[in-house]
């Protein structure tokens, strides 16, 4: 398969994670694409931005810590996390609350991101 033939995937994650299994499925999909060396990007939109809050501790709940899995994304060569800036602001989150490398996008920025991927998967 040549590089030119590879189709890029944008995974849009817009649910908050303790109450839904969709964020986990979104993340697994992105990790799978990266593990198979396919171009993939992640956008956290709406309530999905809450997945990025630091200091999540899942031990008492007895489930996997999705936030820690997110920290492994650079090892999968997924360097940039795209964040819906308006949603983050609506939840009172400033840049200190979210990962340092995140790219904050306004509505026009999100539309441009959607437009430059071949497939868009909404979770």
């Amino acid at each position, binding site marked *: 398969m040549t590089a030119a033939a590879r189709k890029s995937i944008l995974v849009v994650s817009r649910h908050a994670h303790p109450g839904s299994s969709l964020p986990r499925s979104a993340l697994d999909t992105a*990790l*799978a694409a990266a593990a198979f060396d396919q171009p993939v990007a992640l956008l956290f939109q709406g309530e999905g931005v809450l997945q990025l809050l630091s200091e999540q501790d899942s031990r008492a709940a007895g489930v996997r810590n999705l936030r*820690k899995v997110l920290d*492994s994304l650079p*090892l*999968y060569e997924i360097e940039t996390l795209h964040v819906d800036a308006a949603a983050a602001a609506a939840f009172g989150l400033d840049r200190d609350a979210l990962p340092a490398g995140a790219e904050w996008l306004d509505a026009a920025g999100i539309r441009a991101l959607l437009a430059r991927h071949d497939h868009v998967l909404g979770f």
Partner: protein
Amino acid sequence: MLPISAFDPEGFLRELQDWTPEVAEQIAAGENIHLTPAHWEILELLRAYYQRFDSSPAMRPLVKWVAQQLGPDKGRSIYLLSLFPGSPAKLGSKIAGLPKPDNCL
């Protein structure tokens, strides 16, 4: 030595907290691997990966993780394959006492 009942039919630990370095030797022996310091270096990195990222790595991130921690000579698929033939991420995770993979990646 743990009794055979401590392992499932595929040789994975039923209870992760049973894992000790001796248990790792026992699992490795079942895979015809004799653990050397070179193996241990990778097994410790696998356990550190699990602690830090709450997941077991696929092959690609494992290679990158090893390269970051031990340098580019060891952060290569061929080196990891020489230690853990076949599928280093899966086999290494098994010996390191990480959760059984769900075959998703």
